[in-house]
């Protein structure tokens, strides 16, 4: 037991002047063998931003997809082919309106 305490004190003395800085930490980590899932990776932010932006655009786009495809709703009801029947004939309303604007 005493031998062990002595060994510890000697070791403390030996590393007393050694500073375990970031570089050394990285060096140790690089030589360590952590599990694959725990491995830390560094991704430049520029590589993240592009797909993130794409994702946002696509997400927003999916919610507004109908605007890309065009909405059919009400197309049928708003079509301009109403007729106007007068004694002088039956006419397309849009014809009457089209010409009216030129008055």
């Amino acid at each position, binding site marked *: 037991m005493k031998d062990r305490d002595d060994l510890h004190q000697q070791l403390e003395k030996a590393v007393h002047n050694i500073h375990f800085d970031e570089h050394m930490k990285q060096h140790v980590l690089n030589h360590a063998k952590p599990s694959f899932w725990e491995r830390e990776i560094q991704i430049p932010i520029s590589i993240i931003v592009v797909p993130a932006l794409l994702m946002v655009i696509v997400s927003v786009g999916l919610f507004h*997809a109908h605007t890309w495809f065009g909405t059919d709703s009400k*197309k049928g009801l708003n079509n301009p082919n109403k007729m106007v029947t007068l004694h002088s004939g*039956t*006419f397309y309303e849009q014809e009457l309106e089209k010409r009216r604007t030129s008055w």
Partner: protein
Amino acid sequence: MVIRLKVKTLAILIVLLVMASVIAVVNLPSNLLRSGAYDAVIRYFPWSSEVPDALILAGQNAVPNIDESDELLYMMSDGDRASFSNSGITVENQEKAIQYYEQFLRDYPDDPRVNDFVLWQLTLLHRKKGDITRTEELLNQLVKLPAKSAEAQRLLYEVKRIQSEPGEHLAVKGSVRFNGEPRSGVVLFLKSRSTIGGFSSNEIYQSDSITVMTDKDGNYSFYDVPPGEYLVGVAVPYPSVEGYFLLPHKEKFVVVESSKTKDYDVDFIPLMELVSPMDNEMIQGSTIQFEWKPVKGAQYYQVSLTSLERSREDGRIVGSLTRPLTEKWMGTSASYNIEALQTQYTGSSKSHAAGDDKNKAALDPNSILGLLYPGGEFSWSVDAYGTKGEKIGSSSGYYRLDSAIPFFTINAAGESEGDRYARQYDYEKAIQAYEQEIPDPKAVRKLALIYDYGITWEDHGNPHKALPYWEMLQNPTAMDQLMMADDYQKTGEPEKAIAIYEKLAEQGESRAEEKLGDDYRTRGMRNEAMQMYKRMLQHAPEPTGEKLVLMHLLDGDIDEARKVAEEAPIDYAKENLHALMMKVEEKDVSNTQFMQGLEGIELGKSSQVDQAVAALKQDDPNLATILKVLRYYVK
């Protein structure tokens, strides 16, 4: 700059992203459906469970649900347009709806909506299109469904009626032609001559009427029709009649007999070609000249004028007043003095443009401004007549998209201030302006008319205010004098009114004769009244014919009433009276309620008539209709 993260964090993020993408893509069709992009769902996501809904919605969107009577133009072989329910469905949309429903039928034959909805809509769309083969195929499926069996049987009968069944009598046959070319898929129906009043397209589908369809050669047949006189009606989708006019048949009615087969062809001919004025040409100067292309065999032509009324809110056409001009023109042009046409007025018309506001000015400016006036907008048509006075051509038909249209305006430069205000429905200012224009007879006449007609819906006019203006006119026209006489009657000076009526009656003015007849009738001078009505009947049968029939009926003289009905010289009144008499003869004229109703009409007791009509509606609706028709003409 870098971001540090563990592989497992990145993996979780990627998994989440993939899941979100999958969810988004899977839900995309549903989103599209909710947003109304039905076509996109059908086209780009054919695997999606939303496709059946998309097909139905897309079909309904292209053509809102139609029923048998929808979207067809109904008209009678005598040239009368009957009714037209049109929601503006294009041929393209119709084709689209057919495609969607056909796809639904093909891809989802077991969906309950096939039987509930798709088959019926698809059948009606194919029928409207005139595709007899497909219509028949679909009807054969529909006939097996209890819910639609009866309607399908009737329509199946319609498309198959070109072939006879054993033992059936072919009553009427003929063909439908467009400029001489046979047309298949046209629906025809018969309307009994004894039917009183107007015609609604629903009638033929709600009653026991028979409808048939022309075959691929344009031929049609009616089998086993009860003997009688019928008008032949046709129902066609609008686009197929564009550029055409239905030529009135030389025999107005087809007479069905139990042992004979009648031939009755229906002909559509191209519209008469108009030259000018067209496409809102502005007329300058004091005369207007109408020009058209000649019609082969035409002996003379007659022009009709229509003045337009537009909504004050959105400027759309909401009403019109038409006056056929009496002049017969031998050549291909007609010339009229605009100022002279301004002195002719068409009668009071309260405007639809006023909406529901009872206090808003509702008097249609066309009522006071005359047949043509500066600043106004108009439409016109011309009819061509043959040697026997029969109509052989007309410009009053169905116009194409992008074709020139017979509309024109009159330059507003010569417009008076009063007229300008009247056109804007500002009658308060119009009256002030017209007062300033006195003694100009045009302004005086308009003031009298405004006071006679009243400005709002509630305002029924004030003859006391109108009379001084009529009296102010130096050279009143016959119409002016009639209006003045009416005002004398309303203000308690009947002797002055009678004097005017007598003077005008001597000049052959039919409206004065009628007024005199009414006056005699009111005073209990029945013989004199009948004599006056008979005199008028020869040249202006409506409404005197009805009045005479009423008087004969009250006297219990059915034979004489029938004689009047048969001898009325003008078609419209004759038909009305004829139908009336046929109904009367079918019924017991001694019906107490009916006789009380007749008496109420004669004495002007409207509550008595209402009571009789209400009672008869339950017991005998036909007699109730007769009373209503009589009241309309005799009031």
